[in-house]
């Protein structure tokens, strides 16, 4: 609307206001600017344009839901580790989201979605930086009325940082801050988007018919492989394995860990729901159902198994079970039946409990169970697509799992190894005993004790 309209309007106030508050073209006109020629017929907005706006709005909501998952990770990791390393964990998670977003804008997005591959289906890079195509090409025509270019970027960018965050929990309480930050930067800027391009970028695995709806493999396993490599090079925390036995190191704050898991589930509505890449009602609502039922079944599975094995039901296992179910359903949330999702989640819940215990027995020290949740259940979820969806092949799914493992583990191992030889990976014994909060940051998470 323009000033004329205002004076005609019978209710000036809001007009004046919206006019005053944003110096943009009036709404409809603005939209007309991004309409496909077919719809240019005057003031009236076409259904397709409205549809485009809905789709895009949903994708933006999904984006902010994925964002809050980073608080989920930060809370869960901090809660499951010792008080003396809390500041360090919070710091890492705060830094990672920043690094993830910036590097993804700088290069990740164009590595993951190169358009054309320079090495057929295997590697491509569309150049540094991000820039929206002009007019409709960056708007309604960008993704066939599903979302704008900027929406595409920011949604994908939120995913990127996730992979690095997964590593953070597994290597917690002993890794040198700067080594970790350098690793994360490289991994999230190069490895994650590059291997992601094989499937989501339309690369060779996509051509093969490999399926990973929202990232059981592309996000969670990719992070999980790096976690495994890091833990192996770091070794266990002091005092974890003494004289052949296992000495559990308690998480220091269970409410915080619980907040983390619920926020992750909350974010997963966007992680999976947004991966429909439109607001298509039937599909998005189906994904909500499969995602929630898998998480619920994961909780039940983990509670039952831990209750049987430990005599008492373990809260941390129930929490891991929810995440296991979520990671497990992520690959096939839109292609498995509702019953299938329950089975997938339940099995994921059993797997995560067994996996946590086994990994601990082989003396791989993963404070938060990241390897079990993200790598093991990520693999399970990816394979499950081959089992529970008629349209997908188990072997192809297996190929995909193998392909990512074959590249991500060595890549992560290599990066960590180089960093180890240059800076060292692990803080010295005294710092580890005293805690990384004082050692790396010179402060305590719960300061202000009267005696300083």
């Amino acid at each position, binding site marked *: 609307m323009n000033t004329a309209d205002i004076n005609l309007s019978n209710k000036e106030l809001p007009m004046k206001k919206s006019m005053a508050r944003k110096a943009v073209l009036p709404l409809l006109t603005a939209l007309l600017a991004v309409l496909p020629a077919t719809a240019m017929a005057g003031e009236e907005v076409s259904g397709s344009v409205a549809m485009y706006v809905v789709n895009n709005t949903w994708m933006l909501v999904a984006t902010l839901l994925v964002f809050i998952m980073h608080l989920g990770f930060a809370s869960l990791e901090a809660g499951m580790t010792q008080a003396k390393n809390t500041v360090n964990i919070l710091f890492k998670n705060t830094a990672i989201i920043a690094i993830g977003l910036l590097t993804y804008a700088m290069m990740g997005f164009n590595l993951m979605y190169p358009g054309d591959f320079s090495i057929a289906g295997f590697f491509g890079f569309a150049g540094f930086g991000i820039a929206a195509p002009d007019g409709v090409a960056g708007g309604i025509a960008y993704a066939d009325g599903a979302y704008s270019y900027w929406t595409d970027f920011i949604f994908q960018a939120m995913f990127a940082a996730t992979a690095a965050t997964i590593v953070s929990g597994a290597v917690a309480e002993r890794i040198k801050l700067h080594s970790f930050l350098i690793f994360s930067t490289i991994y999230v800027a190069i490895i994650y988007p590059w291997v992601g391009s094989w499937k989501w970028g339309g690369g060779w695995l996509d051509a093969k018919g490999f399926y990973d709806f929202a990232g059981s493999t592309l996000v969670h396993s990719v992070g999980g492989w790096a976690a495994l490599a890091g833990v192996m090079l770091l070794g266990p925390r002091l005092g974890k394995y003494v004289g052949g036995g*296992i000495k559990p190191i308690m998480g220091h704050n269970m409410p915080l860990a619980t907040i983390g898991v619920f926020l992750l589930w909350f974010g997963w509505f966007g992680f999976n729901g947004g991966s429909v890449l439109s607001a298509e009602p039937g599909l998005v609502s189906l994904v909500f159902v499969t995602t929630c039922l898998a998480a619920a079944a994961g909780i039940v599975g983990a509670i039952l198994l831990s209750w049987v094995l*430990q*005599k008492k039901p*373990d809260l941390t296992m129930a929490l891991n079970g929810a995440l296991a179910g979520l990671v497990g359903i992520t690959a096939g949330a839109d292609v498995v039946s509702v019953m299938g999702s329950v089975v997938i989640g339940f099995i994921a819940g059993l797997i995560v409990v067994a996996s*946590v*215990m086994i990994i601990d*027995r082989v003396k791989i020290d993963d404070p938060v169970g990241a390897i079990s949740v993200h790598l093991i259940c990520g693999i399970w979820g990816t394979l499950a697509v081959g089992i529970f969806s008629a349209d997908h092949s188990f072997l192809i799914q297996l190929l995909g799992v193998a392909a990512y493992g074959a590249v991500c583990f060595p890549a992560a191992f290599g990066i960590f190894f180089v960093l180890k030889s240059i800076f060292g990976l692990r803080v010295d014994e005294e710092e580890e005993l005293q805690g990384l909060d004082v050692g790396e940051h010179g402060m305590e998470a719960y300061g202000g004790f009267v005696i300083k």
Partner: protein
Amino acid sequence: MKKIEAIIKPFKLDTLKEALQTIGVTGMTVSEIKGFGRQKGHTEIYRGAEYRVDFIPKVKVELVLNSNMVEQTIATIMEATRTGKIGDGKIFVLPVDSITRIRTGETDEEAI
């Protein structure tokens, strides 16, 4: 003058406090401690790994008083805190050379 240190079960503190007031104890100092003793801690499992909880939460009550009060006080403590179950705790008596009240500078008996 003597100092009595009583290690008791935490939930007995309120009862003890009231009992001591009735016999005219005007002051005490309390802290949360962990105890190791005959009362063996339980074995628990955390994420699949067993561990022993050896140290059990207890409360330590410190009383400084006149030597002549010691016997009665010990009796009162026992009465108030005894459950007959293992882990009830201990009462230690230590000698005290002097007491000073910071506020007034009074010493010994007057300072209690």
